[in-house]
């Protein structure tokens, strides 16, 4: 075997190993965006995009370090959420929230909740701006 074929083989194996590591990590770390209904069926960690149901209120239990609120997904279904942590920044004014977690006994146990703030770049002139954050 010549030196250069040896190198090609070693290089090929290295690339194959790296590709394997990359794609297996990608597979195990991919988290699907889905609906509440689908999350119930899957039972694994997913992300749900939705809005906070304001009528249901929200409460932070400091001792247990759990923040509770209700989330309505894009299909209109509502689920109680238990976030392991404190109230996320800008929770009240968020136009939508993304919760990452899994369904357990009808409750969405979230490890992370991201809030999407009303975009201040939405193109509303000044006098109408005041109204956008509360809508």
């Amino acid at each position, binding site marked *: 075997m010549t*030196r*250069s074929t040896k190198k090609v083989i070693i290089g090929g194996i290295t690339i194959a190993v*790296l590709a394997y*590591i*990359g794609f297996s*990590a*990608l597979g*195990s*770390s*991919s*988290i*699907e*965006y*889905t609906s509440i209904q689908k999350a119930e069926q899957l039972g694994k960690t997913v*992300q749900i*995009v939705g809005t906070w149901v304001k*009528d249901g*209120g929200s409460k*932070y239990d*400091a*001792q247990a*370090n759990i923040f509770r609120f209700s989330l309505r997904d894009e299909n209109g279904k509502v689920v109680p959420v238990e976030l392991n*942590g*404190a*109230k996320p*920044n*800008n*929770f*009240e*004014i968020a136009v*939508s929230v*993304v919760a*990452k977690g899994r369904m357990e006994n009808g409750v969405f146990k979230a490890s992370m909740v*991201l809030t*999407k*703030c009303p*975009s*201040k*770049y939405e*193109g*509303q*002139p*000044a006098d*109408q*701006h005041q109204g956008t*954050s*509360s809508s």
Partner: protein
Amino acid sequence: MIGQIAIHLLFGIAVTTTVLYALSLSSSAESSSRAVVARWLFRLLTAGLVGCAGTLITLILTHQFQYTYVWNYSSTELPTHLLIACFYSGQEGSFLLWTLFVAIIGVVLQPYAKRHGYEAPVMVFYGLILSFLTLLLVAKNPFSFYYETFAAKGITAIPEEIPLNGKGLNPLLHNAWITIHPPILFMGFASMSVSFAFAMAGLVRKEYHRWIDVALPWTLFATGVLGFGIMLGGFWAYETLGWGGFWGWDPVENSSLIPWLVVVALVHTMLVQKRTKGLVKTNMILALLGFVMVLYSTFLTRSGVLGDTSVHSFVDPGRFAFWILLLFMLTFVVIGVVLVLKRRVDMNIKREEFDVSTREFMLSIGSSLIMASAIFVTIGTSWPVIMEILGLPKVAVATDFYNKVHQVLVPFILLVNGFSLFMHWRSTQRQLVLQKLWRAALVAAIGTMILALFGISNLWPLALGFAAWFSLAVNIQVGSGLLKAGPAMMGAYVSHLGIALLMFGVITTAMYSETYHAVLVHGKPVSVGGYTLTYLGSEQVEKEFVDREKYRYFIRIENGDTRRTVAPVLYWSDYNQRQSPFLEPGIRWGMMNDLYISPKNLGREDVFHETIIQKNNTAVVPIDSSLRLQLNGFTMPLEEGPSDDGRMQMSAVLRVSDSSGNITDLKARTKITNGPNGPAFDPEWAVIPGTTTAVGLISIDRDNKDPSRSKGTFAFYDTTKPKPYARQEFTVEFSVKPLMSLVWIGVIAMVTGFGFSIARSLRMLKKQAAVRSTQLAPMPDVES
């Protein structure tokens, strides 16, 4: 109006400059009249951009809210350093800053390129880059008038409709870092254009080696500045934003990391070509890729394609800008690929095989591994977009993906770094390598055992630890041998030492950090993990501002005899109508340990055993389980009449039953004050007959749609004891992060090393130029 016309003119000048330089390519560049005109036009373009930037900053500083951009991103309350930051808070301004930096670098680059006989081919590509950037500015013009932007909403040009104040800057960004970090990052991005322009010039000129020497100082500069900018971002996140760490694999962070990784790989492969004349095509491709990745990153983070996947907010730039960005990127990919393919055969002439035991081989392997990292980060960051394009369900990539791949990659990169320093260029005696190798391996083995003794038992962190010790030992061993040669020779060793230290910081903070959740009641010491935390009270700061209420919350941390006080910050701002506070961590910096407190919640102690009861439901009284309380309803304010002091009153109608079945009816009345944050309740305590339990109605939660589902919150206390007082309750996350300082020391060492290397490469370039001018044969590179 002038500003908008100016931007269009600048685009025209940029295009003209590019065309003139292109036309002067064939003639002997320096003397041709076209080149002279192009040179002056380029200076005019830069002057114009400086003028535009100066105008924009003046408009911001003087609060000219008739301009949409000024209105959108600044406000009258902001101090000067934040007003300066408003310049690049929005897309328009940040594109202008990028363009400005590219142009200013170009003014320095032009005489440099001319000196090395590369002016026309370099400036053609450089001009083309500026043409695209100014076109972006035409699309995202920072000088639009307010009435133009909102003409569709019926806003007209009359002075009465000019807003009195701007929307302001997100309070999270209110600190000195926003004045420092983004410009450095943009300078890094801007300087990445230079290596690309030189590489393309090399292809045009069919000079595949000389561009390496000329472009190397610029490539080192880009790597150092971009690396420094990225680190400042991490420091900002850690120090102010309270993310707890310095790196979160967020798409915005990744998008600055990807071009940096490519340019780091490029620096190493350029060194290989400098010494061996090998890797000609690799360098062309990496120089192209480094620049394209800057554009791709800009596209990812500025086009809105990433949507929900980041904590940074993305803004839809509008269709026009989206397509310009895409076209920008594709144009340069096509130009680069076509040129490389055209010269493919030509570049193959000096093809060479590297022996395994040589430095060039090790550097090639190292660069490949760094590129693997760049590819992984690119795939991870782009995955949501890729899935969307493929029409598959949308996914996000959890940040542990990056940790998983890098815990395998980084140990190999560090080991290869160590090996490469033992190897010589061209050929190395195995005997010599083995001799030195054993010492470093021994140090690494002992170091790894120490890490294990302190409690790391996982394979990959230990592998990373071993590799970091190995790299550290080799760099000190080899680097210290060169001490006499002066700091210029030390660049690579200082940089690699920095990376090893950074990796130790990553290991210690990831593996040995302890994090505790603590609820701190005012004045009451709480023990967590060997530390005693006491919340001592708060103090309002920045009282001179009316748009915010900002407090420092003092927390004493005791550990044995040492006492320290840190002060995390919470503040309420008009920016979000004071609906929720903004948080900043409190940090006690230390060489050995950082003590880090992130505020989580501010509330009141529940000393009254609060219980919520829905209408027509029953609950057990928390302090006396023999009593059951039923909520039958609420009386209306009209029935109760006003209180003595004129406040509105309501009552809860309750029925109490005890264990022996006795039933008593009871009314719990409360006084209600309506305030900006909703009604406040002041209960009249009612003692339940025959007991020592007092009940108070402390809030009413009305359900307007279905009044039968309204709820009341009740509080209780024992009347034989003094009435309790609810103290403030501050909930925090407390972490001890050992050797966090290594992260910052490591990155600073790395950047300093780049500084040394730039000085050295410039000096070598001068020497070569001197040799060339005396018509001698090119001197080989000198290395001791």
